[in-house]
């Protein structure tokens, strides 16, 4: 069983993450935690001083964190993006595709199940920020978007 999962090279953030409110209120912190319902775009002016963003999933069915992650990556954030809370093995792939590169679930995950999930799908239909070429790009390698 695995309690922490990282796809980053090198060090992982150890600094305790502070709330969005205290972070944007001129704190020196380099780690922040976004709760469901908080606006990830509030962090955009400060991306250069962030090394860890935690996004909390209060329940697996609360999908707001997927949008938060993509928004940060679309804005060029390259630091650690960590999913925490009610994170299940069957969600890891979608979270990876939205830009998460580390995971600290409330309940430890089965390593073998994570491995299987990550290898399951060779192809994807959407372009996101994870760099995987969607099926339409593979079908039309000669075009601009492809």
């Amino acid at each position, binding site marked *: 069983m695995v309690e922490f999962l990282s796809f980053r090279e090198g060090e992982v953030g150890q600094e305790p993450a502070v709330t969005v409110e205290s972070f944007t209120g001129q704190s020196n912190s380099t780690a922040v935690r976004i709760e*469901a319902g908080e*606006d990830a775009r509030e962090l955009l002016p400060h991306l250069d001083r962030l090394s860890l963003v935690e996004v909390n999933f209060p329940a*697996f*069915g*609360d*999908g*707001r964190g*997927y*949008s938060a992650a*993509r928004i940060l990556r*679309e804005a060029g954030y390259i630091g650690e993006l960590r999913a925490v809370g009610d994170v*299940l093995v*069957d969600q890891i*792939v*979608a*979270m990876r*595709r*939205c830009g998460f590169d580390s995971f600290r679930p409330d309940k430890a995950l089965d390593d073998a199940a994570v491995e*299987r*999930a990550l290898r*399951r*799908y*060779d*192809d*994807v*239909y*959407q*372009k*996101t920020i994870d760099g995987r070429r*969607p*099926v*339409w*790009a*593979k*079908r*039309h390698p000669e*075009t*601009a*978007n*492809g």
Partner: protein
Amino acid sequence: MYRYDSYDQSIVDARVEEFRDQTQRRLAGQLTEDQFKPLRLMNGLYLQLHAYMLRVAIPYGTLSARQMRKLGEIAAKYDRGYGHFTTRQNLQYNWIKLADAPDILAELATVEMHAIQTSGNCIRNISSDQYAGVSADEVADPRPWAELLRQWSTFHPEFTYLPRKFKIAVIASEEDRSAMRLHDIGLKLVSRDGQVGAEVYAGGGMGRTPMVAPLIRDFVPEEEIVSYLEACLRVYNRYGRRDNKYKARIKILVHELGVEEYKRQVEEEFAHMRTLGLNPPTEELDRIRAYFAGPAYETGLDDSVDRSDPAFALWVDRQVAAHKQPGYAIVNISLKPRGGIPGDASAEQIALVADLAEQYSLDELRVTHAQNLVLPHVKKADLHAVWQKLDEAGLAEANLDLITDIIACPGLDYCSLANARSIPLAQKLSERFAAADRQKELGELKVKISGCINACGHHHAGHIGVLGVDRKGVENFQLSLGGSGAEDASVGQITGPGFSEDGVVDAIEKVTNIYLAQREEGERFLDTYRRLGMKPFKEAIYG
């Protein structure tokens, strides 16, 4: 028709194996029902009152004969010999064993079918016009767009845990046969300066707060539809309500923000989205479109129909619609036999319709949101033969859009959410109004029955709608009048206090009597209701 390439097939095959793995973990006790539930719900497997129900996706309601035949085989092998066609143009099996579900999915995958996202808080099966590609008045065939969106929405990583389910319809005609404006998002293809694009409607829906979707953008060019929808969905995913499942649909967000503010937020997000290169190249839509290029019609065919057989002529007048190609016709097959269960078909009937599609309809058929079937390309010269075969199988009812062409949800006979039984009521109504002359006299009259407030039976959109509720442990039926799911979309108004099952049948009869007594030349029931208002009907029912 669209055909999978190796990419599409590999994704569906991988899904079968994933679900097999999840089911085995459940059967072995490694997953509790609570843990398994969200996984099975992502794949259309519901636990109902008596058994599991599996909902199979029929993208935009289009099927080949081979696919239809497979649906019949599955009904015979794994169900009790029936399939039930739904208001989302899908098919449900009501008597499935959990251990069989992975095998059923594997069988479906052999004919390029699946059950992906037929439930769960994600983007559901994209629905479309059952006359797509064959009606003369469409701007373009809407199905290539629907297929593009099927692929885009399949396992979308950002939009799989939305506040609530999300339904999209695509149409391309002035006449709306898909209840487009009662969808979370409705797209209507339009042509502007020679370019095809979409009008976008957002925030429609049924449920306990029915709303007709307002227009939020009058033109999105085809090459930007994906990024525009990403913007619509992102605003919804971030700000749709999650505190109350009955207020979680996008219609509530659009209503609470106001249309203008929702539009503004979408436009702001769209301005960002369109910089990200999210749209497939135009070559991809062209690739898909090529699959939907019209079949090889014969030319120079006789365009007349021999009407010497009166029973056949009656059926032709009701069930056959004009085809854009001379010599061909669109055949509607009623799944509403006298006293029957709306939308149900036996394994044998499904097999027969598959054969007819192969032999007489260029290998193609459609499912309608009104729970009927369509053979879209039948030669007029073959109509009589098709009718005879349908008649032998109990499928030649001539009641399209008449009072016995009832939409009904599965209700309390199957569904664990229901408050009342929809099917027995539909059967009683069907018997009460069975006389063909009477139905014809009443003309177009759409009756829709839901067994609970979730409105799967579209009662809000019924010219006559019935909602089953639980009243202190007793089934009670509320009547509403004046709804429409067509291009003149509207939400029905409740008449007043509810009725018993027999009482609501009587009340509906009184309503039809008022219509017959007070209609003016050429008026449908809905027109008369709109002209007169509720008052005379209410007096007749309660007076």
